[in-house]
C-alpha cells in the first residue's frame, strides 16, 4: 500500500491506500453536500465525489460559504 502526498487547503498531508474524494471528505468529517472541491485547479462535480480517485501530488481545495459582505 503506497502512501500519497497531497495538499489540502494549503496544508500538505500524507494519505495511505486508495481512496476516493468522498472517502477523504468523510475521513475529515466534512459534510459533502455543503462543500465544493477543486482538484488541481479543476472543479470536481459533486456527482463524481464517489468516483474521483485521489492521486499523489493532488492539490485540493475544499470550500464552503461563510459570512461575507
Amino acid at each position: 500500500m503506497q502512501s500519497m502526498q497531497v495538499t489540502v487547503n494549503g496544508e500538505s498531508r500524507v494519505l495511505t491506500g486508495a481512496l476516493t474524494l468522498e472517502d477523504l471528505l468523510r475521513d475529515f468529517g466534512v459534510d459533502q453536500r455543503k462543500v465544493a472541491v477543486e482538484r488541481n485547479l479543476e472543479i470536481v462535480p459533486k456527482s463524481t465525489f464517489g468516483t474521483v480517485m485521489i492521486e499523489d501530488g493532488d492539490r485540493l481545495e475544499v470550500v464552503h460559504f461563510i459570512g461575507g459582505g
Partner: protein
Amino acid sequence: MKSIEEGDFFEIAGRRFRSRLLVGTGKYKDFDETARAIEASGAEIVTVAVRRVNLSDPVQPMLTDFVDPKKYTYLPNTAGCYTADDAVRTLRLAREAGGWKLVKLEVLGDQKTLYPDVVETLKASEALIKDGFDVMVYTSDDPIIANALEEIGCCAIMPLAAPIGSGLGIQNPVNIRLIVEQSNVPVLVDAGVGTASDASIAMELGCDGVLMNTAIAAAKDPVAMARAMRLAVEAGRLAYMAGRMPRKLYADPSSPVGGLI
C-alpha cells in the same frame, strides 16, 4: 402606482424580488445574530464569502445552518480576490457548492481603500458571463465603466456609495444618478452606506436597491438597524416613485393666506 404590497418588485437575471435591500452576512458577533439581523432586514438576497473549510474543526457551526439557502438567495461574492482569475476560480467553486449561477463579482484594487479594480473587474465579468454566470458586479461610480459592464452582459450594476466599511454614505450623487439614467439593468448602491437615511438617498436617486453589510453588523443593535434599513429602502423607493416636491430658495406658506381674522 404600485407599492410593495401591490407587487412593486425588481428583476435580476429573470428572477423577481420584492425586497430591494440585499444584506451581507459578514462582521456579525455570531451566526445567531447574523440570522436574526437578516430576518429583520426582510432581505431575500444575502451575500456570502467562499472560504476554505477548517479541516481541523470541520463540524463547527456553519452559516447555512443559520441562514437557510432554501429561504434566502445566496449571492456568493469574490471578496478578497485581487485578480480576474481568482474571482473566476472562486465563483466556479461557489457555483458547484451552491448550484446557482447568480453571483456578486468584486475584484478589489488595494487593501486600504478596497476600491474595485475596474480593469480586472471588466476582464472577470467577460470570463464569468462566457461561463454562464449571471454577474451582479461591484464597481466604482464611473458611468463609462458602468456602461461597459452592462454591455458585456452584467445583470446588475452595483456602484459603491463610498469605500467598503466606511459608512460615509453616497459621496457622489451626480455620478450615481448618471449611472441610473443610462442603465437598462438594475442599479444597486453597494458599500459605504452607514445609516438609514443613506439608504433612502440611494433609492431617491432612482437606484433599484441597496446592498450593505457593515451598516447593520457594526450598529450597536444590528437587529434594530436591520429593521431600520428595511423601512428606509422602502421609504426611499416610495419617495422616488411618488415624485418629490420641487426645492425652492424661498418659503411657500402651507396654510391659505385668505380668511385670516
